[in-house]
């Protein structure tokens, strides 16, 4: 508990990568995030976080096939590792635990 210091943006990126399973490369992630969260994301900030998460072991990545679009550059696809999945679940449980601990009167 408490070992996994994930920032809000890092958490959102992890979730998005998981949602896009198999199709999670730079632009796709950005578009998904922009669609779901209604916020604009720059390549620079996303890539920084992706590399950081990969270095921490939450993500792995591999190159896809080269295509005609994108000037012939290959895409790098990210997937969530087992370790990443476990971390995400732990975070989720922590949050749910906290939600359920809120007394009902609090929101009245």
């Amino acid at each position, binding site marked *: 508990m408490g070992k996994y210091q994930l920032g809000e943006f890092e958490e959102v990126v992890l979730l998005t990568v998981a949602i896009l399973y198999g199709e999670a490369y*730079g*632009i796709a992630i950005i578009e998904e995030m922009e669609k779901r969260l209604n916020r604009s994301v*720059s*390549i620079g900030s996303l890539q920084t976080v992706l*590399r950081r998460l990969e270095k921490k072991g939450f993500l792995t990545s591999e190159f896809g096939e080269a295509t005609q*679009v994108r000037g012939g*550059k*290959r895409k*790098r696809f990210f997937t969530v590792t087992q370790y990443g999945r476990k971390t995400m679940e732990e975070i989720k449980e922590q949050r749910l635990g906290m939600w359920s601990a809120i007394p009902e009167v609090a929101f009245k």
Partner: protein
Amino acid sequence: MNNHTPPSLFLRFFRWFCHPDYREDIEGDLLERFAEKVEKKGASKAGLFFALEVVKLFRPSLMKNFTGQTQINNYGMFRNYLKIAVRVFRKEKSYSLINTFGLVLGFLCCMMIYLFISDELSYDKFHADGDRTYRVASAYMREGRWEPYASNSWRTAELIETNFGEVEELVRIMTNRDIVEYGDKRIYEEAMAVVDENFFNVFSFPLVAGNTASALRGANKVVISETTARRYFGDEDPMGKVFEVDDRAFQLQVSGVMKDMPSNSHFHFDFLVSSESLKRLAPEELFTNIGWDSQRVYVKLTEGVDPAAVEERFPEFINANLGFFTTANFKLFLQPLEDIHLTSNLGLELEDNGNITHIYIFAVVAAFILFIACVNYMNLTTARSLRRAREVGMRKVLGAKRGNLITQFLFESFTMTLLALVLAYGFAHLLLSSFNEFAGKAISRSVLFDGTVLFTLFVSFLIIGVIAGAYPSFVLSAFRPINTIKGGRSNDRKSHLLRKGLVVVQFVISIGLIAATAVVFKQLKFMQTKELGINEDLLVAVPLQTMDRSQLNAYKNELLADASISGAGYANMRLPGWISNSAPYRAQNVEADEEEGKTLKIIRVDADFLDLVDAEMLEGRGFSKDFPSDVTASVVLNEAAAAQLGWDDPIGKWIEVNDNRYTCIGLVKDFHFESLHRRIPPTIFVMSPVYYAWSYIKIDGNNIPATLAHLETTYSKFVTNRDFSYSFVDEDVRRQYEGEAKFTQIFEMFTVLAIVIAGLGTFGLISFTAERKSKEIGIRKVLGASIGSVTFLLTREFIVLLLIASFIAWPVTYYFISGWIDGFVYRTSIGAEPFVLATALAIVIAMLTTVFRSMKAAMVNPVEALRDE
């Protein structure tokens, strides 16, 4: 898809900075995003967006490693060079210390000379319109020569102002000395000047209090310097305070306080008195008399006016306006304000000026010293090269290219130079105040932090580093590995010759400097000790000041009553001094047109003066009390005057000066009344008691303090409102050459330093030679050579080089020094002894540095030298 391309500048930038591992996919993302934006928002917006994305990608986590592999080798190599340099320095301490010390001395000398020169050059550069401000100087025709003066008359200045429209501002400065009183303070002030009210329009001296436009307006106003204000008023506000001046003859009210005039101004005053005050005090006729030669006149010309055009109109102006003065006997010319300090040496200068020749001489000396220091470095480093031959060979075997080795040795020389420069810079800070004292300067420490100084240091660091390091690095890097590693001697005959050549050049400079110093010193001694034609020993000069002139006889009699005083006399001026009093004349047997425009100098003396100073009478007699008519109607000429008049037999002839007719009663041998910088002028002596201003008293040397005390008591009986002051004439005579004395001193110091540096170099070289020849010495000793013969073997080479250097140095030095000495009116002969002395001294120095080391080499047990092979 379409053919729009993203901005290539940003794409290239991205490719340059991005980490290679991330480059491909992020670039792909960028391009995809760009294409999408083109479709949605159009090409130009997409381009902008692309640029923004690239900029946002520029963050450390995505960048490549800029200290990457490609550079790592060079850094490592330089670190290695530095390490080796330090090790070499430690291993060969004496060489390295000599080397560094020589460079430090050289740099230090140059820094000091640089500061000295830049200070001299900075004179009067701070005036806002200094580039169009000029001093109007004058010249009088005397003995067929123009005699220039820094001064002009009040009236002349006035006429210039009205006749020349180009003159925007004209300001007069008249020096003054007076007693100033405030409260209980009563001080004889010598740095006073009477100036026109527009003084501050021409000269930029900032005021601390008061207004530059109005401070000097009206009578009885004075602007004082900050120091003076503190001297009189302490912390009180000086504005509006009133001084009593000249025993309450008039008052001066402080109307402004200025910052002290900076040291690099060619005049310094503590009191600036408004000229309106002078008009109230001085007799009216002075202001219309064009002969009242008392004002320094400065003009500021309108912007864009050519000073030459103004000067061209002076002759016409003189003939039209100045009465007695015509272009035949009078001249006006302009001196640029900024050049006055270094190039002007006229009569009646406000202060002693600098000398541009000295600047050139010092610059050359600085260059010489730096050259000697560099040569030392080159010599010692190449000489030492054999010891490092193995290192060079090894480096080459391991793959170093020649370029690498050149870099290495240049790097070493740069390290050395930097070290020396930093040390010298530190010493410069420490020694600046003593240098200031020595050179009579007030260079502030902040000058050392000045941008140009630091820049010059940096540039000289680069230049010296290259000069000192280039030759050794090329020689060393050329060694062939096979020779050096096998232990064979690399053939350095050529570099050996070059080293000898450099040593000769060092000796030439040293000998030349010694000889030049000797001549400079000889000339100074000559001027200080030359027979003036009079006997000035034990002669005391006392200014009469406010003494009642009718009491002169009583004063003299009272003085003579004391046994220690053997004579007393009066004159109108100070001896030695400047004879400023001159007049046109008419004389018997002289054609009117020959007299035209000529003048004679006039000195007024009493009956005893000429006897008192032991002036030699060639014909006739001197003044005498036995001839009462002498007082009004007799004249004594000096030889130069007789020559100007063309009189072979002057006695009994008449001459008219200032509407008085005098009969010549005697001819006196020429003697020096003025300094030896000036030719003895044609002079007449007349008696006019009202003009006497100085008394001269001959004392015996038995008890000088008691005699002086007696003088003072006697004096204070006759003068109550002034302090007694005196000086010895022989000291005053010597004091006239203080400029020369200072120059000689500075020159001597730098010469000594140059010799020390050259001596260090010689010592380094002899050490090297001794080491290289250690085997030869060993064998010679085994075969029976004595210590003396071995010492001679080592020293011989240097003596030969020294003699060669002497033969080069003598004629070169003679040529330059005779040019210098020709600038003096009265000069010593150069003679042979400075040159012989220089060579002898150089030999002594060379012996001192070499013999000791040679003996040490010669006394080594031969086994030591021969064992290791």
